[in-house]
Every structure is written in structure tokens, then in C-alpha cells.
């Protein structure tokens, strides 16, 4: 089995918090390689404390084991740091279909402390995943998981999650 075929196999492993997204398109799985009789999967964590990472690593091992691999090494790498910039438009659409607003704008950061301390800092306009209205408001930068913030749509009066640009 080639590295590309193993990657295809790993598309069966989903993020437990966002089950419509697999760990390859999410960018958690960075590379697959072979060493002697072992298959090595390089993974990078999303947020430092993401509790889903343990489940994901376990699922990666279980999936490969069920396809005949015996010697599996899951190797954690930290650089380059995971970013939502890696998500494709196709993946972003899956978020919308699931009722989560996909990351808006680039995660890149121009620097400068003003952005950090101003109550009037510019906030990106987040589009409602249900009615596509941009008349929405951020309720909290912290949501049900580290990767999401809470918003409210003034047009369709629905609260919704936003997968933060990170």
C-alpha cells in the first residue's frame, strides 16, 4: 500500500467534535511514511489542549490496524503550526452544511498590540451558515470547543457556531 492509499484510508477518521470533517482535510494528518515494517503517521495538534486529539490518534491506529497494519507509529509534530488557512473551499462548505460558519479571512496576524487591547478592534463579518446573512453579532470568542466562537444572526434569529480563523 502506498502513502497516498494510506492517506485515503485515513479519510475514514473523523474529528469527533465535527464528524463531517475528516482528519486529512482538516490538516491534522501531515504525512505518511514507511520505515522498515512500520507505517508512520505525522500528526499536528490543532489547539494545544484539544481533547479530541487523543481520540483521533486512537482512531488512526484502530483504522490502520483493521486494514492489516501491525506496526504503527503516530508521531506528533509542532511545526508548522496548524492553521485554518489550510482548509479548502470544499471543506468550508461542509462546515456550512453542518450549521457551523467556516473560518472567515486569513489567520495571519499583522502584529501590533493595538489589536489586542482595544474594545473597538475590527471584527471580521461572519456570515450566518443558515441564511447567509451578514447581519450577525459575535456573542463570545469562546464556544463549546476551543476552536469555535458563538454568534447570533439578527436576520434569522438563530445562534450559531463559527470555526475561528486560527
Amino acid at each position, binding site marked *: 500500500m502506498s502513502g497516498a492509499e494510506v492517506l485515503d484510508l485515513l479519510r475514514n477518521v473523523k474529528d469527533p467534535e465535527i464528524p463531517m470533517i475528516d482528519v486529512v482535510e482538516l490538516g491534522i494528518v501531515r504525512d505518511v511514511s514507511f520505515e522498515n515494517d512500520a507505517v508512520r503517521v505525522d500528526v499536528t*495538534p490543532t489547539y494545544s489542549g484539544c*481533547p479530541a486529539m487523543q481520540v483521533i490518534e486512537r482512531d488512526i491506529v484502530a483504522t490502520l490496524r483493521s486494514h492489516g497494519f501491525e506496526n504503527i507509529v503516530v508521531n506528533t509534530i509542532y511545526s508548522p503550526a496548524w492553521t485554518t488557512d489550510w482548509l479548502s473551499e470544499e471543506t468550508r462548505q461542509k462546515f456550512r452544511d453542518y450549521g457551523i460558519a467556516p473560518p472567515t479571512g486569513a489567520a495571519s496576524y499583522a502584529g501590533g498590540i493595538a489589536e489586542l*487591547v482595544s*474594545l473597538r478592534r475590527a471584527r471580521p463579518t461572519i456570515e450566518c451558515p443558515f441564511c447567509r446573512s451578514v447581519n450577525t453579532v459575535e456573542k463570545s470568542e469562546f464556544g463549546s470547543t476551543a476552536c469555535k466562537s458563538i454568534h447570533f444572526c439578527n436576520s434569522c434569529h438563530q445562534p450559531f457556531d463559527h470555526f475561528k480563523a486560527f
Partner: protein
Amino acid sequence: MTDNLFQYLLRLGDDRLVLGHRLSEWCGHGPILEEDIALANIALDLIGQATLYLKLGAETEGKGRSEDDLAYFRDAIEYRNVQMVELPKGDYAFTTVRQFFFDVFSYHLLEQLQSSRNSEIAGIAAKGFKEVRYHVRHSSEWVLRMGDGTEESHSRAQKAVSELWRFTAEMFQADAVDRAMKDEGIGADLDAIKPKWDSVVTDVLNRATLAIPSDPPAMTGGRRGRHTEHLGHMLSEMQIVARSHPGAEW
């Protein structure tokens, strides 16, 4: 060299583990639902960052210990965090002001550590830096709201600033470990962080109409294992399950 690196990683890990635990004490007790969730999120980030530094620390030490061994089976005198982070959580103003003081420090620290010559520290710092950016936004906004808010919120925020101020200098006190790590291009230059911290903190406190105390910062010793009485109590709660049932899994 190895011992300096181990000590340095303990400092990075312990600051975040202890503060993360203090924040987690708010879980279910936050003043409003959004803040309860926010503090639990930030606690998770900090404990996650601590895990990465302590794991690297345990590997550096090379004595077969894990990050969990370091967290759960060291006594207070073996902890290397600054004293500020171990103080009891107090009221919401105290928690917020402390978080703000630490976040601004951590922001500038991790900004530097992203270019550490130790590639693992650089990678962990790069990830943590992205998280600390929104931590600072959160804590600074609440310092502004509380300081420039009602009479009650102002007086509580001012009390917190006055109580915490003497603990802030410890973050910037460089000793032989810090200097060795800085000289090797692994650690941060604490002297360079201090003026940046001063500038941001002064700006926010001024805008929040909070007065900066004039008393000289005095409390130190955490990096050498000298702690307030509070750390031992906190650890006894944090460590009891692991110590009562060593090796337990669920």
C-alpha cells in the same frame, strides 16, 4: 546544559499548569455562562501548553518520567512557577487582572520563543502564541470594562491591581538558568520583555482608570521552589486522585 534546559521547561510548564488549574476552579462558577465557558477554554489551552512543555521537559531529563509524573508527583518545593499564578482565584476581578498581567507577559515571551534555536520549543511556542493572542484580548477587555465600569467593579479591579502588583516583577527576574538559555539562543530575553509589558499594562490600566501602585514589587522565589502557602493546598487537590490511585486509567 541539559539541566538548564530541563529547569527552563519546568518554568514554562509550571506557570501554565498552575494558572490553568486556578482558572479551571471557575468551571461551573463563572459569573455568566459565556465567561464560565471562556475561562474553561483558556484553562484548557494553558494546561495543553503545559503538557507539551512538561513532556519535552521529561524527555530532556531522561529519567523515564512522563509529563503526568511531573504534574502529579512533584511537591510544591519542586514546582518552578512564579508565585503570582498560584494565588487563590479570588473574585472575578482578581482572576481577570492576574490573567491580564500573565497574558501580556506570555504574549511577549512566546513571541520571542517562536524563534528559539530549539525547534521543539519554537513549534510549541508558535502554537501557544496564537492562543495567547485571544487570551490577551479577553482579559484586557474585561480589565477595561471593570475598571471603567461601575463603582463596585472599579473598586474590585483596583483592589486586585493593588494586591497583585508586588507579585509581577518575578516574571522578569532572570537568573543563571534564564541567562544560560538566552545566551544559547534557546530562551527568551526577559529584560527585553519588561518594557513591552510595562507599556501595554500601563496603557490598559490608564484607559481603565485604574491606578498603578507605587510600592516596589517584592515577592519572588517561585523559580527556586519558594512558594506561598497556597500552592501546597492547590496541589493537594490537583494531585490527590493520581496519588491515591497511581497508574490508574479510565
